[in-house]
């Protein structure tokens, strides 16, 4: 196998590794929200222990990227593939951590969450999950337009975040006994909002990867 061909294979394998990690993170987010909405502590635990695999994958793939830079000294698009790869890895790893945060919150509220307090959290979670999915789809297909559309969804998520935040606070004012529980829901909305921001970061990375230009979309 020629030198260049070998390098191409390694770059393709890098993309596969990133997608593997992306799939794990998508699953973690989904399971964490399930754990919260269905009050399922076992599923929450699953998410928390599952994060080790995500972290391990991140370090493996990242050191692989550094090795590629050191041994192949890539330029132009090849360099962009590796650099955005590292950035997406970091974003994914942080997203995995947010999923763990949500799972921890789910464990804390388990069994005593007032259903009414949930408000628009399921709706917000659906949008965030869609953003993550679209962002990763944009990465798979190198689709700049998809990345842009996905990033635009962040505004809606922010809007729901503000509304939910306000209504949770007024819920706590009216039901002071529920404060220990609803505080965790406040945190969950915050984590969801951060997840959406991370998804936007991935969208920006995709645009840089394809066009070679940085665009602030957040």
């Amino acid at each position, binding site marked *: 196998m020629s030198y260049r061909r070998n390098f191409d294979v390694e770059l393709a394998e890098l*993309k*596969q590794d990133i*997608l*593997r990690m*992306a*799939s794990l993170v998508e*699953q973690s987010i*989904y399971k964490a929200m399930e754990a919260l909405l269905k009050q399922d502590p076992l599923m929450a635990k699953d998410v928390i222990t599952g994060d080790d695999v995500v972290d391990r994958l991140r370090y493996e793939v990242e050191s692989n990227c550094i090795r590629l830079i050191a041994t192949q000294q890539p330029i132009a698009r090849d360099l962009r593939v590796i650099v955005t790869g590292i950035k997406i890895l970091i974003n994914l790893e942080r997203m995995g951590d947010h999923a763990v945060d949500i799972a921890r919150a789910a464990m804390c509220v388990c069994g005593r969450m007032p259903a009414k307090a949930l408000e628009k959290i399921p709706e917000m979670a659906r949008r965030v999950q869609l953003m993550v999915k679209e962002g*990763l789809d944009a990465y*798979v297909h190198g689709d700049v337009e998809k990345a842009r559309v996905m990033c635009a969804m962040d505004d809606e998520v922010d809007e729901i975040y503000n509304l939910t935040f306000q209504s949770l606070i007024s819920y706590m004012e009216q039901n002071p006994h529920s404060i220990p529980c609803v505080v965790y829901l406040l945190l969950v909305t915050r984590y969801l909002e951060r997840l959406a921001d991370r998804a936007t970061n991935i969208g920006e990375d995709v645009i840089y990867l394809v066009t070679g230009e940085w665009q602030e979309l957040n």
Partner: protein
Amino acid sequence: MLRRLQRLAITGPLMLWAVLTVLWVLSSAGYLSQTVAMVLGFFLALAVAVAMRRLISWPLSRVAETAGQMAEGDLSQTLRVYESDEMGKLAQSLNQMAQRLRATLSLVTEEKNRMQAILDSMADGVIAVDGETRVILINPVVEEAFGLNEEASLGKTVLEVVRDYDLDRLFREALDSGRPVKQELRILTPEPRLFRVHLTPMRGGQRGVVALFRDITERRQLEKMRTEFVANASHELRTPLTSIRGFIEALRDGALEDPETARRFLAIIDEETKRLSELVDDLLQLASIEERRRSFRRQPVELASIIQRVSDTFATRVQQKGLRLRVDLPDDLPPVLGDANLLSQVFHNLLDNAVKFSEKGEIVVRARQENGGVAVEIADNGIGIAPEHLTRIFERFFRADKSRAASSGGTGLGLAIVKHIVEGHGGEVRVTSRLGEGSVFTVILPGHS
């Protein structure tokens, strides 16, 4: 070809010589000027050269052109064969080759169409990948389930097409081990669904894996519902039984001696027994409706008279509770096809609920024609149903307010029976409600036609 060349090599120059001789004789005899003879001679020589070129190379270029078209895949071309020389033979061979290719191709196409038809009509999803987990085939079930399109997916890795960590792992496991693998997977894209996946490594030289996907989401849900139903039914049956046994024990332990207490206890036992038998009746009715669903009696039924008759039976109860009952039925209601007894059960259950859960105001029964069928509305000013319960109230044993329902003495099966009967008649039942303001149940039954 060679023979044609030989012939031309002799006849061409001979003709040219003859013509030139004639021209020379004519010009030397004074019939033609020397210049005209020269010009005529030049054109004649040119004509002979062009004719020779055409005769030799034209058939050759025709053959070359057709062969080129065949090479590009257009096998509908045939060459006309004029002569039996080498050129003729070449053309004939080309024609034969094209014909044979056409036959093979149609055989292959037919085979492919047959395979495609089999794949397309399979109820299970199919994904086949090569030795590097690149997709080489997917069928429409997979396209639909994962929101894919075959053309865009071919050549991509399975991870790019269906982004699922475990699925990718299973594919590689089957590839590496060469053994079949099966597992249940919940795949998130685009909607979370549960699949039973069978992966089998390909046999016969080619490296790759074929995976079959069966969607078991609904089946799992049904299984869960069934278990829940058994649990609920047992629970509902046990509650009155426990109470009956408790009071019997109390009677046996001495309460029987005190006639006043004994009478009170017996009344409770009687009440609980009634509840138990109502529950069993409802369960049996539900079971029989479910069983007969497809074989309901279908006779033209005048809904107005049924509704009026059912409403009349509630008159006393309505009066006792201080409510009002208004029945507003137009005269021109079309008849519906159905079982009169079952349909009166529907309105009985709905009115029973309306009376049970109202403390004030009015219960209104209205009917109207809708799309050739009949829509009956039963509206009350009762306690209403919370929005999060609206989708669940037709489930068996579902109770919006557990403490209240127990005192109201229902079995928790009334609305489930309503739903089953109405849907068994090809209709639907809808509900809108506001907590504290009342509920509106609408039964829509299709018309006679």
